[in-house]
């Protein structure tokens, strides 16, 4: 973390990549990412949002590999609201509709150095069985209004019926303070 003398901010540089995911049941997935950060944070360089290429499983491995680079620099005056990386994975369902396959979030590592984070992914489940069926049929699964909600705690307690299922998605970071 560097403190420039006149404006007194510290910088957080994130280098990394979204390496890949492990979704045993799905294939041909792509991934969107964005950052969620607090009031006192602002990105200075790099992309704040992005979307990866579609990747497919190889015949040998069941891992989806994106190796999508991330490179962003934030400036901030306050560690509160430390940036979080929000990742959402989409892919086609049986009918070719793009549906969400998982949401997940992780904080940018707090310490400099190389880190690998494995993010458990989840999707909201339909409230009713019937909805599950129609959602499947029409390709409209329940989605978050904004993927960023997964980075907030607010409102989770109200959503009583949000069963999730877990998948894994890993990102590696190399953050430089």
């Amino acid at each position, binding site marked *: 973390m560097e403190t420039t003398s006149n404006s*007194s901010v510290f910088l957080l540089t994130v280098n990394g990549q979204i390496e890949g995911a492990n979704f045993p049941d799905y294939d041909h997935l792509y991934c969107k990412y964005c950052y969620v950060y607090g009031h*006192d944070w*602002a990105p200075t360089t790099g992309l704040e949002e992005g979307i990866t290429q579609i990747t497919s499983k190889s015949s040998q491995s069941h891992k989806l590999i994106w190796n999508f680079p991330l490179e962003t620099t934030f400036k901030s005056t306050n560690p509160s609201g430390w940036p979080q990386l929000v990742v959402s994975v989409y892919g086609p369902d049986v009918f070719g509709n793009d549906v969400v396959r998982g949401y997940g979030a992780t904080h940018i590592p707090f310490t400099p150095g190389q880190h690998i984070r494995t993010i458990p992914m989840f999707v*909201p489940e339909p409230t009713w069985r019937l909805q599950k069926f*129609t959602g499947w049929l029409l390709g409209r699964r329940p989605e978050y209004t904004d993927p960023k909600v997964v980075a907030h705690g*607010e*409102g989770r307690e109200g959503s009583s019926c949000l069963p999730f299922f877990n998948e894994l998605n890993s990102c590696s970071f190399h953050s430089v303070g």
Partner: protein
Amino acid sequence: MAASSEIREKLRKKRRALQDTLAKNKNEDDIQALVPSARFNMDKQPTAMKEAVGSDEDPGETLRRTLRAQREKRKTKLLEQSFVQDEDVGEVSPTQYNSPNEGPSSRADDSVVFTRPPTGSQRGVSVKSEQPSRSLHLDTFVTRHLQEKLRAARSKGESLQQQETSEDSSEPVSRLQRLKDRDTITRFDREAHPVSSRRHDDPLTLRTRVKFQEQAGRVEKDFPSAEEAYNFFTFNYEPDQPSKPESKSRMRQKHRDGVEEDDRDGNRQEEAEEEEEAEEDEAEEDNQDQNEFQSEEAPLVRNEDDLFVIDHSPQDFVEVRKAEYVGLKMRVQRDRELLFTPSFLTVPTSVKLPENMKPRFLEDEGLYVGQRPAVSMTNENISENRILKMAEGSKWFGDDGKILALPDPIKESSTRPPLFHMDEELDPALQTVYRKTMKSQYANLYIAGATDPEGDYQLDVDVSGLIFSHHPLFSREHVLASRLAQLYDQYLSRQQNNLTGHLTEKLNGLRKALRNMMRIHGEQGSSEALQHRISEYSLEVRNTRQLRDLEQEKDRTLLRSIIKVWKEIKSLREFQKYTNTPFKLFLRRENVDRALDEWEYEGEILKEVLELEAESEEQHQKKLAEYNKQLEDWKLWRKKQKAKRRKKKKKKKGQTQDDTEEEDEEEQDQDETESEDPFEEDPVKPEVPERPGVDSLERWVREKASRIRRKPGEAILIPELSTSGGITGNDQCPRPEIARREDVSRRSLFIKILYNHKEVSRTDSCSLSTDFRVHFGQIFNLKVLNCPHSINLQVFEEIGSSYSLLVQVFVPVPDPSVVTGRAPIEEIEFSSNQHVMFDHEGVGSDVPLSFESDGSNKLTLLTSGKLSCCVSWGVGEEGVPLAPPLSQHPAGAHRGPGHLDAVSYIGASGLYDMKKIGEWAIQSRLDPNDPKNTSIMHLLKVATSGEVTAPDYFRLEHLQEEFNFVSDEEIERSKRFRLLRLRNQEAPEFRNYKFVPLLEREVSDKVFQDYEKRLKEGETIDTRQHLDPHRAVVAKYLQQIQESVINRFILSKHHYQLSDLVIEEEIPSIGILGINLFKLAESKRPLKPERKERKKVTAQNLSDGDIRLLVNVIRAHNIPIRKPQSNKPGQSSQSAIQGSDWYLSQVQVRPFVEVSFQRTVLQTTTADGPNPSWNEELQLPFNAPNGDYSTGSLQSVKDEVFINIFDEVLYETGPSDKSRATSIHTQIEKHWLGSVKIPFSTIYSQSKIDGAFKVNTPAVLLGYSREHGSTSVYDQWRSTQGGTFIRLFITVEPQLMPGESVRQKIKEAEFNSQEDERLLQASEKFEIHAAGGYPDRPCITTVIDLSGKTVFITRYIRPLNPPQEFLDGFPNNPQEATSLVAQYVSLIPSLPDQVSFSATCDLLSTCDQFLTLLAGDEQEHAVLLCNYFLFLGKKAWLIIGTAIPEGPTAYVLTHEQSGYFIWNPSSGQFYEKGDTFCPLQTVGCLVNSDNVWFNIQKNPSPLHTNFDITKAKMWKPFFSRSFSHPGLSSVQPEELVYRQTDKAAAAELQDRVEKILKEKIMEWRPRHPTRWNRYCNTTLKQFLPKLELSRGQNVAEGHRVELQNLLGDYRISGFPLHLPFSEVGPIIEAVHSTGVHNIHSSTVEFALAVYIHPYPNNVLSVWVYLASLVRT
């Protein structure tokens, strides 16, 4: 090495010389032999030792030396090996060689430890320890020798140091080592070898030798013989040091200093050494002399010294001897002499405390004493004994005679010395190695892992059966029978306990005792103690008697109720003619001896009466005593009064000299009553207490006895319940009963067993028997891996194939000691609140039920029963219980800490539960004095005192301190923290504050200025801004409401619902599903264009300049046209324009549109004609306040878009004749024709606005008229409507996310309601349904009032009286009154809720609130207008719909003979139903006081709407036959009370407004002089009241003419503005937007007149007449 060899050579010579002189050659040989052997031959160590010991002369001493040498050698050796071991040597050696000779050294150690802190340098210390012995030996003259010796030693030391330094310089000593050395030094005061230097090999040899020599010399001096050694030790304990040794020590110190000095300038050369050697020789000689004085052995040292230097082969010195045996006894004896072994017996307290002090126990005094660390008694005693031996040992003991101890002996900071090292230099042995945690096979099981790898435990769940005490299928008889059974059970248990008998016995015993005591009392006279005891006994008797009576009564009533229930059963059986239950009750009679019984009965009564008498007597006495006391007081008081009176009277009647001392009491009393002193209350004269009558007592006792006791002679009834009765067969039962029985037989039950919330097994389903008992009798063996948290039995009832959960029973997890076979079967009661009802005989559950014929005395029974089951730990094959060991039981394992830590004991969620915390506090026996527990204790105290303030927060106080990173004061002081806190609290100024500076100094004080100002202004009302005190108050009030509402919103904003987070498809109906399926099959039509929704942008990533406001000005209709300029046709301008517009006979108007928003002004091109078409898009930038583009902030943008229509007028100026021929100077003037105002909030919430807006044109537009030259039919028709319209399309680019409605949330979350729950649900359903069917039609059934409560909307509609003067004004013309009322309503300023409350929330104030606040949105206007119309006898409804440009709004509908009329409440205008230009676009629903009707017609526009609400196909009523109107009372007041507005105040206001406006206009024209035409001003002023009277209609023409006449020479353009008055700001804004001040002609003059017409209740109508005059 050359130097050293030289030295060696010299030393050798020296040695030879000395050897001759010395007596003890042998000894010397010994040493010669010893040292090398020690040095070079480790293996020969024991032999060397033997030799040493074997020497005749002084075995102890030699051994000592040997040891020393040995240790020396070991050390060097070990040091070479490792450092770690090096340290050990010091510790190990004394213990290893536990010979008596070792004693001295360890003794010396001890002495050091005891006498002085171990800070001193070791050498100094060792010297000290030697001192006593020396002081014994040496005479005073020794000091002289010592001085010499010192000199010698110094020189020797110098030479030594020289060598040392040379060595040191060759290889620096690491710092680490030094540290370690120091450590050993402080602990072991011994030979003190600078271990550090010993690392290096070859220089070491010499060095060590020298050192050793030195040491050995010392040793020899110290230990001349055993006796001396003994003396030395016995003297060692002397506390005060003689002065001589002091000097000696100083000398030694000096010596050392000298050595150090040399050390410092240690780079001496070898040449210098030569000299020093000589010196050394001398010194050695000196030393020798000295040694001779000291002891005979002293020369040995020298020899030794030389010895080491000689390079003999090791073999030369080796001498083999056998080890000397020292007898055990002797050794023990020596040990005893030398060693101090602290006793382990308890030290008496008196020893530990200072004399004459008693131990003081702080804990007993109530002070908090922490828990002492656990130390075994023996250890404590030993250390106490040891400490006592120490000097000042007593200071280690506290007042209570115990060793002072901290509660927590663990130091907070680490005592381990920090390791300064670079990463790579760290010894590999010290590197931390990380290993992965091993996962045990049974993860998170009983922690068994290591000890018991099997770890399988077995829980046996025995589900034996189920008995219902109530079941929905119970018949009435069953209900009674079960009650009977219960009562009988109760009876039996009571019989068993036999409390009554027990109490009776006790009572008799007490009475006997009391009697005895009384007898003694009577005989021996009363003693104080006896009396006391008697009174105690009688009290006890009384209590016992009362208890017994109670029990007797209970017995009696129980018996009675049993009989009663049985009778009921009998009658029921008779009545229904069949029996369902096998119960039978027999009453066994036990006859008693009547006489005896009676005698007992009477005796009992007599006794009781006597006792009661005594008691009442006692009480009487007490009362009497009290009475007497009171009487005394009273008398005293009276006397005082009397005395006072007398004094007063004397004063008063001093002149009359009337002696009134002998007044009688009555007079006195009278005087008292009228006493002048009103403060002193008269004590009432007490009354003599009455003595209670004995008769009444006896009567009372008898009554009670007859109630609670068996009558004398009556037989004792013993009920016996048997189940021997038969049940009537099915064939004899009526149909409903058969149905019931069949139902019973259909049902079966089974039980699921859930272990840790997971189903593990279930029982077979057993059918329900007729007696409602189910027997399962199944045992389930559960192999358990995970800790049992819960065992749950779920009882399911099965009917046919479906089953339902009846009840859940939680079974406690058994203790590990509870093992199958030994565990009793437990009956667990359960009940469920299921609601079940049957149409047959079954009584159902949760259904009121009555056994009375009249249906009274209803009782509601819930399904309940008992489940008998047993959970225990299984037993293995060899009888080993398969339970987890107690210590591993999770509860048992962590019992200690668990008790102390509330969180682990009751779980985090349990912290909410007061009861649990209380339980925990009791169980863990919290020390109430412990400061750590204060918060919990306080909490418990508060909780138990009754006033439970339910804590709505999570308590983590006991962890709080760990989270505090700075102190509270610092947080308070810091500006940065303050800023952060305020932002977190969402203070309006900081809610969206970004980038709180990183450093404290960067936070400027300015940041808080606004905030502090607001806080300060909270109290004071700024009247300057408002011109009108009333309005200032109102504004203040409004602001407060806003704040509170906003706070609620902020709260509810954080309250999310599922739908706020997750987008989910609604459950589609079959129809929609079908359509969708159909769509799938539909062929794609790529060419068919589909309207795509614009992408909505979330607010986060927006910044200034990203948002633009698009205003598409399409066209306008019916713009006023210029009038030919009066009677002066020859005007140049006119002709010029005429000339240019050749295609028209005359120019009518050249309008253009100017759009201003946020001070950005853009204008269209100029078009021609009264119906121009521009079709231009204007883009205005939008800046959010403070750069905050969040939804909430955007919603609160108060800016308005002004769309002004101007006429561009060209004038020729400067018509100087000269230039006229060649050039024309034209001047452009713009004349304001009208404007449209659209608030940004409307655009934002609707995302686009499209439509024709009515332009607000002034009532009179000087120089313009609406009559058009052309006479097309369309225009004709239009002109009759009398309005100018402009068609606009406004939107925001990019599209912003409209603020979601908070309304729904509020309903859910914070805002409570007084409405019936059913009504609210119904209204919600109604609205959802409406929104589902017709999403574009607003439907409102409930609104939120000012206090934030949800209120049904019909409660707002109620006829209310308008101001009386309106009614009186036109008694014969109701039409006139109507329009007057409408105008009055429209004059109340509008204030959209969205703006004020920054969210889409409707707050509806009642009409009186509205009239007080004088601000409200359309809804409030509409409600008021509707209520007025109702009062006027019209049929009126509220229309909830959408209009242009307001969006969702409320209008008023009236029905008259001529048809339906729609009123715009905020403008006061009305439209016929068929009017196409009615701004109302959709009609959502109609509201009146009775009902709400939702429009379900096809076309919602008012034009096509049929307003006949009776038609069910067109209007869907809220209250219908299925849900009738519950008779909602109105929230409106009965009657509105109006205040007359102060006319003088209005006039004053008028002047002020005029003044302000004039100033403003001048201000806006900074570069031009502004002249006011006074004449015109006055004329206009006269004009305005007329306008008010006529409400701006039909005066234009006459007015213009009049003006024209008055001001002939001027070209006038001007207009009156009509506004409701709220504040002065909007007026200024309106004036500014007309742009009158923009005329820059040099000859221009202005005229301005303001008129304010007051209406009741401070409703003010403001007219501003504005004109510009240009002299022509």
